[in-house]
């Protein structure tokens, strides 16, 4: 850390001297540039350190003792971790599928008609995006507990928190994200194309399959990838909604943190980081593709 910070200071000092030598650049512009640089350092330094230390040979402490890929090999061999990874992928896949279907339909419904109160619905869609995870998690836990009790007294069903509650919880927050992304891609969709298709004799369902769906598909896939990423990354909601013995990668990592952060944890985190970044880049790429297509 010291190394990086020292670098940063050096950079700042270096940058700070320039206005004296190059008089044309106003000091305000330099202040902004320095600010941007500091922001990036602030954002990325911890991540860079995490990645570095996942290759640190020292088992304990924060001292650098040399390079190793030992921790990654350990990961590969740990059955518990593999089980957690598998659970993560299962939860992410199933919740993404369900949330994408529901979210896309919701976006279509919201974009199509101009019924009263649509704006209120529109804004309400953003709620899960903006409320704190912990609030959502507690609310979902309360919801599960209440409905389980209700179902038990009325139907005699004995339901417990478990994997399915995690999936349901993930569906709950992912619907919002998918809807928001698909709404954006529908906003780019030119309504006149629907008219042109109808004019050429296409019935509403043909218009949907032949024209509308292909054109908003990149948006839907983008939304799905985002949902998948968010699901993989989620800790708080999973932690509350899971039953005993259910562990995703995030809860597994949390369970392993005792008094210090072990290099293994750094290694898992690095793997998750890379995976998420790839997925987010893919998601953005899909969304960008649509806008370049429609113009």
């Amino acid at each position: 850390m010291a190394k990086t910070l020292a670098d940063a200071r050096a950079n700042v000092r270096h940058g700070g001297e320039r206005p004296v030598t190059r008089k044309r650049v106003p000091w305000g512009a330099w202040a902004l540039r320095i600010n941007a640089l500091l922001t990036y350092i602030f954002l990325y330094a911890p991540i860079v350190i995490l990645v570095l230390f996942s290759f640190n040979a020292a088992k304990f402490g924060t001292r650098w003792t040399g390079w190793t890929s030992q921790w990654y090999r350990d990961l590969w061999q740990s059955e518990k971790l593999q089980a957690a990874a598998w659970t993560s992928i299962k939860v992410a896949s199933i919740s993404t599928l369900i949330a994408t279907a529901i979210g896309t339909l919701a976006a279509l419904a919201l974009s199509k008609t101009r019924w009263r109160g649509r704006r209120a619905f529109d804004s309400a869609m953003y709620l899960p995006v903006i409320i704190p995870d912990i609030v959502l998690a507690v609310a979902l836990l309360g919801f599960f507990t209440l409905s389980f009790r209700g179902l038990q007294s009325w139907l005699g069903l004995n339901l417990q928190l478990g994997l399915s509650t995690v999936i349901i919880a993930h569906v709950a927050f992912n619907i919002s994200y998918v809807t928001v992304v698909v709404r954006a891609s529908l906003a780019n969709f030119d309504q006149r194309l629907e008219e042109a298709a109808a004019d050429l004799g296409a019935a509403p369902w043909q218009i949907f399959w032949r024209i509308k769906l292909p054109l908003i598909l990149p948006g839907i896939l983008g939304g799905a990838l985002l949902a998948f990423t968010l699901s993989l990354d989620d800790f708080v909601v999973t932690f509350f909604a899971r039953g005993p013995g259910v562990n995703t990668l995030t809860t597994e990592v949390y369970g392993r943190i005792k008094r210090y952060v072990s290099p293994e944890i750094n290694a898992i985190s690095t793997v998750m980081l890379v995976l998420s970044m790839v997925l987010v880049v893919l998601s953005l790429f899909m969304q960008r593709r649509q806008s370049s297509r429609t113009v």
Partner: protein
Amino acid sequence: MNPHGPAANPVWAVELNHVTKTFHGTAAVCDVNLRIADGEFFSLLGPSGCGKTTLLRMIAGFEAPSDGSIIIGGTSVGDMPPHRRDVNTVFQSYALFPHLSVRENVAFGLQMKGVPKAEIATRVQAALELVQLPGFGDRKPRQLSGGQQQRVALARAVINRPKVLLLDEPLAALDLKLRKEMQIELKMLQERLGITFIFVTHDQEEALSLSDRIAVMNHGSVLQVGPPAEIYERPLTQFVADFIGECNFLPGRVTAISDGIAEVETSSALRISGTAPQPVAPGDQVMIAIRPEKVRLIEGERPSISNAFPVQIERVAYIGSDTRIIVRLPDGSSFDVWESNTISTLDPAAYYAAGDKAWLTWTPQNALVLTE
């Protein structure tokens, strides 16, 4: 009105009865009544925002009339959805499908009708040749220029051979030469297939040369309907006279009428005799409309005809086929005169020059006495 002769009991291709469309209280189309014959080339002409597109959209079924009824091929289309109407549209905005190739765009209508694949392929090829884009089938719309996109839109509509084709400024994005070629292609196509065209254009020359009949619109209303010559030679209102072609206007008051010729005294005491397409009575406030190519300039002695006024040449513009001259009348108002250059000469004496004096004359049948 039917170009193929009157039928005993004609079924009109399109019939509009008292069609009105209001958006948020303002009328975009106002009480329009039109009967368009089978196989007719019918043009809608009017300034921007006068309701042409709105009228087409109601015929195509994208907007429901606020009032009135639309009958296509004898069937009232009240709330028939667009895809059931045997009408195709060439959209002002092209509206090509961006994810489909040119070929797939053009084939779309036939695919929806379930035409066999082999037939689709040959007809698509023919349609692309028609619009002079035979090698462009595999391109995506975004890889085409505006004019090329417009021609794809045209091919995509025409290929379906609908009863009625609605064309919303289909040639607006083309350069002059291509535009002329496409005008001829369109006209031939329309005659060969017997499709009824309802054609919106801003280009009067295009409307005059292609149409069987023209409807001139303003502020959502149809002001006059008739064959091109009638619209040009016998405009009923000042707006139509002004909108189609060029026109000089002189306000005045009717003083006498004899043998269908109205005597009018202008506000500056010029006495003009002209023809009134609609009945006028002495004392009426009128507008005299005179086309610039329908007057003559004569040098020398005062000619012995009723409409002759001494003028001074103000400005002369030689434009090849014509010379356009602005003259000043005795009352100080200016007047446009177009003289055909019927003789090829470089002699400057053959042309008028600014400052020359002459007599401006016209025969009474070339001066229209309009009531509005």
